């Protein structure tokens, strides 16, 4: 016990991954991971600050929070750091007009973004929308640009749905990188900017926070590289040997 107390010295806040930690997605919504609703409630009753830090990019933030609230989680949109809003900010700051390779479910996040005459491609976890035609269109847009910019919402390899493991955006991002000979910019875990903005939202420094996640690279590795501590959970996409 003493050992743990030492390792957790100075922790004043928790960053919580959602998919694979609090719940597993399914085609029709999500199923809670046992005990998570109560665990979040306990965290919120404690003096610790809580921030949800997700790479979810198939659903809009509103829909995601709605699903979680239905499962009984105490969560609101303002408490979540998610990649689509962060991407929109970047697009506006840099005058980028995206060709969107995304799932329809997240389209509303880009409602006030100018998508005419695209000068970049934004790729997210498009799931079933990762058809050959859609990938090809995005590829053709990039090949026409003098200065091709590819922004990827996360770069996860796969995630867990109740039906099994599912290819995530990372592979498709690598596909376009390879096809065009370019490198994508990643918005979302494990990019340091993303973690920093989550920390800023709860007014903490890295050494005062701990990240809880199921992705050893995206959640745990990424957080630790920013100077946070991190806990790996054995739910979600966790596989014993990796």
């Amino acid at each position, binding site marked *: 016990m003493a050992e743990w107390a030492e390792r957790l010295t100075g922790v004043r806040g928790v960053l919580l991954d959602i998919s694979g930690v609090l719940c597993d997605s399914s085609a029709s919504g999500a199923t809670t991971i046992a005990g998570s609703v109560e665990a979040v409630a306990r965290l919120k009753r404690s003096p610790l600050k809580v921030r949800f830090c997700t790479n979810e990019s198939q659903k809009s933030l509103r829909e995601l929070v709605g699903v979680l609230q239905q499962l009984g989680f105490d969560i609101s949109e303002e408490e979540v750091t998610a990649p689509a809003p962060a991407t929109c900010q970047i697009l506006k700051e840099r005058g980028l007009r995206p060709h969107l390779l995304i799932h329809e479910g997240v389209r509303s996040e880009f409602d006030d973004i100018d998508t005419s005459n695209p000068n970049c491609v934004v790729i997210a976890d498009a799931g*079933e929308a990762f058809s050959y035609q859609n990938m*090809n269109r995005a*590829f053709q847009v990039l090949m026409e640009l003098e200065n091709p910019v590819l922004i990827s919402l996360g770069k996860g390899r*796969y995630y867990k749905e109740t039906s099994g493991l*599912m*290819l995530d955006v990372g592979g498709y991002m690598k596909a376009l990188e390879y096809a065009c*000979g370019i490198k994508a910019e990643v918005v979302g875990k494990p990019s340091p900017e993303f973690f920093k903005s989550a920390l800023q939202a709860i007014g903490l420094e890295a050494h005062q926070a701990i990240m809880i996640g199921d992705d050893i690279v995206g959640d745990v590795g990424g957080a630790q590289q920013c100077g946070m501590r991190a806990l790996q959970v054995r739910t979600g996409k966790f596989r014993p040997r990796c």
Partner: protein
Amino acid sequence: MAARRALKAVLVDLNGTLHIEDAAVPGAQEALKRLRATSVMVRFVTNTTKESKKDLLERLKKLEFEISEDEIFTSLTAARNLIEQKQVRPMLLVDDRALPEFTGVQTQDPNAVVIGLAPEHFHYQLLNQAFRLLLDGAPLIAIHKARYYKRKDGLALGPGPFVTALEYATDTKAMVVGKPEKTFFLEALRDADCAPEEAIMIGDDCRDDVDGAQNIGMLGILVKTGKYKAADEEKINPPPYLTCESFPHAVDHILQHLL
């Protein structure tokens, strides 16, 4: 690199070099005849992932090229050889038209994934199935990793990007059997009984045709037809032995300078 010896064999790429889809490159038939009038052996090497040798032959004959089936070496042949060697049962993500090249291969209860250019199979569900097999330890065999190819309506993604996606998602590496892999060229030259230093490759893909061939000691000629884009020749090191307009120009050069 060993010193060059007399030229014994010319390897020629097909789509993009001898013909562009269903149209011959102007003057190519004539140029091939001139080449055949010499003592060199000609072999046609292609990374096709959707055409059997019979299909290729049929198209080439329609375009009035004089070619026989045993002069053609494809990446599908190379893939089949590998499957038999490894004794695996593949999930075949290949164009339906390539299936004749895999007749007799067990595909029930797959424990391997073979992937070629098969846009109709590259939808999320099927790739996800392949991904799960690979995560369980099945080997990934890629017929080739071309980034893109030229269609009538512009550039289109080749199998390479999708192979890359699966490699990244599963943290594994594919075994690639087509150009620009060394084994592909060595196999093609093996039945021509000819060393790399005695051979030259003519193709429109700077990396896959020219760089691949030069990597095993062949000379490479880059032609500016097919998928060639301006300044492609600057993308490889060493640069192509020669960059020229088209296959007939390449043949002229060979006749004038290498024979």
